[in-house]
């Protein structure tokens, strides 16, 4: 392995001055195109895909059923109560929206920073963002007492003459999440256009040619196309960049602007953003590691990619750990007895097991990523990522539920217990997410063909000329 990597280093030394390669050697424009488009155009579907689609499809169908049942009965089928009026729904919302962040970070910020290694993973990370935001978007609507009136949160002209109440962070959420979804979708779609054209040209079936042809919007790959494409893509990246920070900042305002001890904290925006990216990269790894294995895409998603993702996880994980420390410190330093009780209850109360788990994972366990061997071992990294995802879910659970369950008046304190529907609806959104990802893998190029081609030395030269 090591020998192999050294060899790659030598080969691509003119591209990346040091470190292992982000593209295996021996590839040409044609081989890259063949290999990636084959996943889509091939008639053979891997058994693993069929199996996963069946399983996750069933979960998705359950989500549909549970949603229908919930619409018929009301959100009382969940475990939410007074005082804990937000339960799994908001926990899952924050978790899913956090996961989306890695996609935007990879596609926008790393593009602007000219991190070429992003080219291999940006496409499916962006798709991941889209599906994660869909799952996230499901909850704020469905958790409403009267979800059919969710559109009242939008400022639309109406005969009632009433506008949303703009001081509420939930209205900001509507804007933040809808903007985020729109920009991510456009960015993702624009990135797909040259590849859709490739698929149109290579598709054996008429239907494929027509569908991909329509989606490719007449892309011919002329120099003028490329010129305009490049500038608009970078423009979009510039637009998307603030979103990486803003969306989860706004989500954190849902909590930070409230008076609830455990929520009312100024550290929340940076802490939430770091946590989002942290969990987002964990999800990227959870998706990338099996995909590269099943589809044999080790050439394009190399250990270098895994290593980089793991390093980002580690870095953002440290920020999250800092957040935990500051939270506890401020509870003591502020002298506020409600804060103090809240943190003590978090550490030693009914929900302390969750807090202990998340601290031991996000503060201590994640430090294993300092070890290079773990960062480069797909299996171990997969395991770490799954654990991190679980810990980040626990973090949101602790923030939402534990803070609410014991706030100011002890007379109102009560426990929150999720119900069967809470849990299975969450599994259902995982089904929706995975099903979406599987469909994406099957019908669209999961790795950007043209951007991988750019990684070849030939492309490098020609691109510079175009610039």
């Amino acid at each position: 392995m090591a020998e192999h990597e050294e060899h790659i280093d030598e080969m691509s030394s003119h591209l990346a001055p040091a470190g292992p390669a982000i593209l295996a050697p021996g590839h040409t424009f044609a081989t890259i195109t063949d290999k990636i488009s084959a996943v889509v155009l091939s008639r053979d579907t891997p058994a693993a895909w069929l199996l996963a689609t069946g399983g996750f499809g069933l979960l998705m169908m359950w989500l549909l059923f549970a949603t229908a049942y919930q619409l018929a009965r009301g959100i009382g089928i969940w475990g939410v109560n007074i005082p804990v009026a937000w339960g799994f729904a908001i926990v899952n919302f924050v978790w899913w929206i956090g996961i989306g962040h890695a996609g935007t970070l990879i596609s926008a910020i790393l593009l602007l920073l000219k991190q070429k290694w992003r080219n291999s993973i940006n496409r499916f990370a962006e798709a991941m963002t889209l599906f994660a935001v869909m799952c996230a978007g499901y909850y704020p609507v469905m958790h409403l007492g009267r979800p059919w009136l969710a559109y009242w949160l939008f400022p639309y002209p109406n005969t009632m003459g009433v506008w949303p109440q703009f001081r509420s962070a939930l209205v900001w959420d509507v804007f933040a999440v809808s903007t985020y979804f729109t920009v991510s979708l456009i960015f993702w779609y624009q990135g797909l256009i040259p590849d859709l054209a490739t698929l149109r040209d290579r598709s054996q079936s008429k239907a494929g040619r027509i569908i991909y042809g329509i989606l490719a919007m007449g892309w011919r790959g002329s120099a003028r196309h490329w010129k305009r494409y490049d500038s608009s893509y970078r423009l979009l990246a510039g637009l998307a960049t603030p979103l990486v920070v803003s969306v989860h900042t706004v989500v954190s305002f849902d909590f930070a602007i409230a008076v609830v001890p455990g929520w009312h904290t100024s550290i929340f925006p940076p802490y939430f953003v770091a946590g989002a990216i942290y969990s987002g990269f964990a999800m990227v790894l959870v998706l990338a590691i099996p995909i590269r294995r099943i589809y044999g895409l080790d050439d394009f998603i190399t250990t270098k990619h895994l290593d980089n993702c793991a390093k980002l996880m580690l870095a953002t994980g440290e920020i999250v750990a800092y957040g935990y420390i500051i939270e506890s410190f401020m509870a003591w330093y502020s002298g506020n007895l409600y804060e103090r009780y809240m943190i003590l209850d978090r550490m030693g109360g009914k929900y302390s097991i969750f807090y202990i788990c998340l601290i031991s994972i996000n503060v201590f366990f994640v430090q294993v990523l300092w070890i290079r061997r773990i960062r480069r071992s797909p299996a171990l990294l997969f395991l770490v990522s799954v654990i991190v995802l679980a810990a980040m879910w626990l973090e949101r659970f602790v923030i939402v539920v534990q803070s609410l369950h014991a706030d100011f008046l002890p007379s109102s304190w009560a426990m929150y217990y999720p119900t069967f529907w809470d849990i299975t609806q969450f599994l259902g959104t995982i089904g929706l997410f995975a099903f979406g990802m599987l469909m994406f893998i099957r019908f669209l190029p999961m790795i950007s063909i043209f951007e991988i081609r750019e990684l070849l030395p030939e492309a490098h030269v020609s691109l510079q000329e175009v610039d």
Partner: protein
Amino acid sequence: MAGAGETGAAAEVLARPKKQRPVADFAGKRGPELWRHIEEALEDPEVRERLGRELPRDEGYLDPVSRRKFLQLSAVTMAIAGVSACTKQPLEPIVPYVRQPEGMTLGKPLYFATAFPLSGVLRPVLVKSNEGRPTKIEGNPQHPASLGGSSVFTQASLYDLYDPDRSQTIEYLGDVRAWSAFLGAMRGQVNAQKAIGGAGIRLLTGTTTSPSFAAQVNALKKNFPQMKWHVYEPLNRDTVKQGAQQALGQVVETRYDIAAADVIVSLDANFLSGEFPGFERYARDFAARRKPEAGGGAAGGGQRPMLRFYAIETSPTNTGGKVDHRLGVKPSELEQAAGALASLVASTGNEAGAVPGDFAGFVLAARADLQSARGRSIVIAGDQAPASVHALAHRMNAALGNVGRTVFYTDPIESNPAVQIDSLKDLINDLKANKVDVLIISGVNPAFDAPADLEFGKWVGAAKLVVHHGLYQDETSAHAHWHVNAAHYLESWSDGRAYDGTVSIVQPLIAPLYGGKTEHELLAAFSDNPDQAAYEIIRGFWQAQPQMGGADFEIKWRRAVHDGFIANSQLPPKNVTAGGAAAAATARQNGGEIEVVFRPDPTIYDGRFGNNAWLQEIEKPLTTITWDNTIWISMALAQRLKLYDAAMQQSANVVELELNGRKVRGPLYVQPGMPDGMVTVFTGYGHTHIGHTGNGFGYNAYEVRSSDAPWSAAGAKLTRTDRTVPVAMIQPEQQVHAGDVKDRNGLPVETRDLVRIGTVEKFHKDPRFAQKSDTQEPSTAGPDELPKDSLLPNYNYSGYAWAMVIDLNSCVGCNACIAACQAENNIPVVGKEQVLKRRPMHWLRVDTYYDDVANPRMYFQPLPCMQCEDAPCEYVCPVGATVHSTEGLNDMVYNRCVGTRYCSNNCPYKVRRFNFLLFQDWNTPQLKLMRNPEVSVRSRGVMEKCTYCVQRITKARITAEEEDRPVRDQEFTTACAQACPADAIVFGNQNQKDGRTATLKASPRNYGLLEELNTRPRTTYLAGVLNPNPGLKTKDVEEAERE
């Protein structure tokens, strides 16, 4: 194959009975009998099937019911429909009045005075009627027994009227009968009994104070000189009567003038709880005398010291929560403690040695205070205290010169003041001796609640004919031949007496919903004039009375019905003196065995409210438990018997309580303040036949109650079972309040200064002690001063500024306000399961805190919406469904609410309630009648909360605008404030500087809950002030005195 099939089919068809169409018999077939294929004609099943798919035939392929069967069923249906015609259907006018009834304007409610009987004693009420539907019950402000206050029972009795499970028909052995059929059937009995002087007639009723009912019975006795009238209620006042008999030589009614007292010693008297006769008046006077401000409150006048209150209690009560000093004793020690106090009170010497060590401090202090307040003190014994304790109380009152000054004796208010347990035993003996031909049971449920050893259910069968008359088809009606559905008191003409003897005329607000009969009409059925209306009976009776009769009867009658009472009909005080010396205290042997105390359930009472969903869901004082009765035990005993699990949350160990060989199983509840070595059981639960709401909840304490030990018994055994049951509490995390308090997980909750308490001494030294809290900056800001830490200028409330002040010193924790709020604001009942999920809907709750486990002081804090001026709920609502009004209300716009529940999360007081499911009953027609038309009925997915009864505010504002004047102070008030018997809740316009609200807001005791959050609550509290005996420093007093 086809050929073979055809032949086969043809042969088959040939073999069919004649009724079927014969095969090739086409002769004479015309029209519809035409056929297309030979196979069709031959009825080949295969072909028929194929054709059938194409041209469906009417061969019953859809409906298995044939035409004949259908007609049969129709006939039956018609017949059954005819049966229901036996009940006269109410007239249903579908057009507006052509001629408006006098005084009625559609949309404007009318108010009628009447009275609610609870165990016979009338609670005077004023009932609101919307277009003929009673929708809200208030205390009658003009009646001396209410002064506008009411109890949780009074408030919730409205639900009983509309309870869909109420008995709706007269039945004979389960078959519906008409009233005339009942009258006819009784004629035969009456005639048969006339011959034998009524020797076989037995009448069993509950306690009644109705003079006309007594007169009716007396009239009946002329026909049936040998009939007997028995009275029995499980929560009777036998010991009160026996105690009076012992000490005074006669049965009297004792009435107290708490307003005139400076010291009260309670001997297990729960007189601040709804079931106590005179509760409304006593609570009002008590609260007025507990104001620490000089002058002693409204009722006192002059410079009188604040009332000092001692209580010796067995089972803790909310009355015990209002004490300055409380002594918890076992029932066997009660008499000892009372006896020690009595002997000390009677003497002047120092006989401290005679007092058992445990009580010495308490008894000596109480004695000193009693002796220094001769003629201004009261010793009050509870309805459940033994007769000997009552006798001791009478003697003490006599020795202290209280009789005639604070304690008054009158004739009994009961129409039949028999000792009820003897009366019931007498009846059972007659049953056993087969002497009973006709047993008329009216308004009681002895098969459910008679002492277990009397075996009423077994012996009632000995009566030849049992007539049951009641609101429900209950456990007793199951034993009866005839069941007559009773009229609710809001449907009845009747009369009776309040605790002080004042006579009230009970008038109906609505025609009986199901044609129910009153007890007067039932009794009349056995008279010579069987089909008399209650109105004639009552009116006729009073016309014959000297105080009402005469030429101006009509005027007096109208005045009495209008006012709700006959003026000056109080029973006059009698001059009675306690004779004889105190009997030597006969302390029961206490061999370390467990004693059991029986207590009325604080909301279900003796079981009659078992199907009242409101009362089931209203939190019980002290425990905040709903939908269940529990077995109370002290922490020490529970730990000793290994029955206590610290980990329990909202669920309890089921224990088996064995008493005299009888067993009952119920959930155990560790109640702070329970004396060691005893348990308390509560009556009223364990119904099997009362209705859908009440069946199956709790355990039946009557199953272990025996006739010789009605209120307490010794020798119980507790065994743990392996079962636990969920117990639904409104406040599951019962918090011990003061000091270094630990929560369930051993974490320091710290004193949050939610309930602020001081002593009189501290109050006089520093009246503003409550405004200096540990958790917030000392603030001297009055309600209209700017808070120091606001960046923005305040909104100027130039018009009205509605506000509320709740005096924690006055609140007695009776929960009447919760019931009032529920009735006024159409608050749904959610059921035990949803309460367990922490989704109760009450807009108002009474938080209960303790400061100790073994011997706690209890604090009650009613918590409606605080109507914060800087409301945390408002700015987080994304659709602006909760907004601030120009009058300072935190308004809730139900139609706009989408249900994010963010407002509830951000409410530090957690007073918002969410319709997680469709909690409101949209289908039951009776419940639709019950609702207040001025308040919207909320549906699923909407947040709701206390609105300060905005409908009342609006109505008052409109009236004031019509009359071109501002709304006057105390012109109207909220439902909770109106119901509060203790006048603890005061609502009004705080901008009116001379108004009551503004005056109280200016009180140095005024503080806001969680004010440090800068929410600027409009609802504020007046700190509690204790008046402890300076010589009796207990831990809690010291704590209250500490800075």
